[in-house]
């Protein structure tokens, strides 16, 4: 791992376009009624435990079962497919885009993805932490859990079969978790970012630098 990272190049990329463009898709079918207009400012989930829903974006109407869809991020509605208003939409139809200003934490996470040792999904499948790892994460938090090559770290749920997945890579702590249990992860996408003990100061340096330089 090259530890001579070009901070200026990376930060200038984020300075020139400090936004993420979040495309909102319908997660379900139904008749859509928009609750925002183009240019509207929306907020994401709030509260100490993210228990307060974000702005109401639209509602999908089905028989006695309207499905409100809230924004999970803050930003501005930069595009909206008004022609769909009142019409039936299928699942996974793109309906709007939110221009989301990146936060310091998001930029750090994005950079860390490039410098941590990522352990990638061996197949497109659903992943869960192995029972023992999950118990340790629940008790001590992920960054207190060290993993070694050969450890059973995940259970891969593939075609209704549970298959153990063994870690291969540098030993280290689970620094970042990139998957959600039970949600499909594509082949080759990172599941976790592992930080070898010797690289912790370097990671800390990145975090400090971004914190200091990013307004």
């Amino acid at each position, binding site marked *: 791992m090259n530890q001579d990272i070009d901070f200026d190049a990376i930060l200038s990329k984020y300075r020139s376009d400090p936004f993420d463009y979040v495309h909102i898709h319908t*997660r*379900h*079918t139904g*008749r859509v009624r928009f609750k925002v207009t183009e240019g509207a400012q929306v907020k994401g989930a709030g509260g100490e435990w993210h228990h307060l829903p974000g702005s109401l974006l639209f509602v999908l109407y089905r*028989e006695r079962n309207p499905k409100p869809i809230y924004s999970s991020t803050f930003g501005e509605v930069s595009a909206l497919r008004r022609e769909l208003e009142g019409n039936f939409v299928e699942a996974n139809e793109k309906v709007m885009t939110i221009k989301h200003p990146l936060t310091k934490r998001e930029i750090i996470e994005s950079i860390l993805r490039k410098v941590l040792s990522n352990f990638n999904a061996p197949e*497109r499948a659903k992943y869960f932490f192995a029972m023992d790892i999950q118990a340790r994460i629940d008790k001590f938090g992920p960054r207190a859990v060290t993993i070694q090559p050969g450890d059973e770290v995940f259970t891969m749920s*593939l*075609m*209704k079969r*549970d298959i153990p997945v063994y870690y291969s890579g540098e030993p280290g702590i689970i620094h970042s978790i990139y998957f959600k249990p039970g949600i499909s992860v594509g082949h080759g996408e990172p599941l976790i970012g592992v930080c070898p003990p010797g690289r912790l100061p370097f990671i800390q340096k990145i975090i400090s630098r971004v914190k200091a330089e990013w307004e």
Partner: protein
Amino acid sequence: MKEKVLIANRGEIALRIMNACTDLGLDYVVVYTEEDADSEHVRRSLDHQPHGKRAFRVASYTDPNDILAVADHAECTAIHPGYGFFSEDFRFARRVTVRDRPLTFIGPNWEVIKDLGDKINTKRVANSLSIPTIPGTDGPIYNEMEAEEYAEQLMADQKAQKIKNPSILVKAAAGGGGMGIEEVREVEQFRRVYRQVQNYAKRQFGDGGVLIEQCLRDYNHLEVQLVCSRHGERIHFGTRNCTIQSTGRQKRLEAAPGFDESCFAYVFNAQEVLDRIVDYSLKLAAHVRYDNVGTWEWIITRDGQPYLLEVNTRIQVENDVSARISHIDGQHPNLIREQIRLALGDRIGYSQSGIEFKGSSIEFRIIAEDTHRGFAPWIGTINQFDFPKHDWLAVYTHVPFDRPYVIPSEYDPNLALAIVWGDSMAEAKARGRQLLREITIAGENVAGAPISTNIPYLEAHLDKLLTF
């Protein structure tokens, strides 16, 4: 009003239902998930086709709100659940039929599914009618201590009966299709296996209940195909034998009739046993007023003792195996067509004596899997796929023949069902061997490794059909 059917399933069964609807002159729509966009059942139903848009994307095949929203939007009047997914879910069947805009559920009445779709309740009802069932729990267990006590008792009972190598099965109560079943040979292993199955059950089915049963060895697994109407008519389409299964108890080879003297020297009167399980199945069907197609699953021990395993309150993958040995006015019936017709209120229109059973049939499930590594699913892209054409062969597949197809990892890697038939079991086996040699299949995974299929396994097991 003309009936319009929503097909709430995928793969080859969706295609078979589409064809059955067409045969009956019914309109239909299909639903699909993003992962299945390249499946043949979707490609044939997209809006560039002459009949207009018939395919609607949903979040999942198990999201009832999505499916019903499509049914309402497309003005469907009935829902066909196929097999798996919602086919044996009485809550779904009830919701479909009891709503502001009621639809016909193509399957048994929801109350019948409630009675028999749940294998625990089936066991209780069967016991009340003196129909033999496998020794074990007749309800789900959630408590580890209670489960262990039961396991110890079952092991002790087997030892008392001097059964060689006694063992028990731990099953996910909400499971099906052979998934979530583990064997325990030593009581000391029980807790570990119990936790493993419970965890699996919670994750896959949302219910951690388990069943514990005596594990029977040296048996055959048979099925009785029934067809019943909403007018109290009940007939059968004979028996099938599905003993050859993967390690995960998924069927791989299935034949009809259930036993054949040319395959094995049974120590019991095979025809008598087959007649007995048909009679038991009809007795249970009459008791619960069964009113659509269904399969009664049986375990037959080497000495000819039958035990009712469960009832599949739906059309089964293998329905056509029965149809290919049955003749009505000289024609093979189409049981999916019969199912739809009867669910829409028709009478059967013929009697048991009008069905002639003749010859033998065998079904091959062609699957992308490594049979040497515990039937591990193979994932990759199929580049070439083709079957021969014979008048003794039917092939059902959702895999296209004219373009590459990526097997979606979200679902089982089933590629095709191929059914052969002949005047005798020997002829059916010979035709089966010919078929397996004539299949063209090529593909590779992300690492560039060639496709693994179970074709060599199917060929190697043909001679084991209907044997103990």
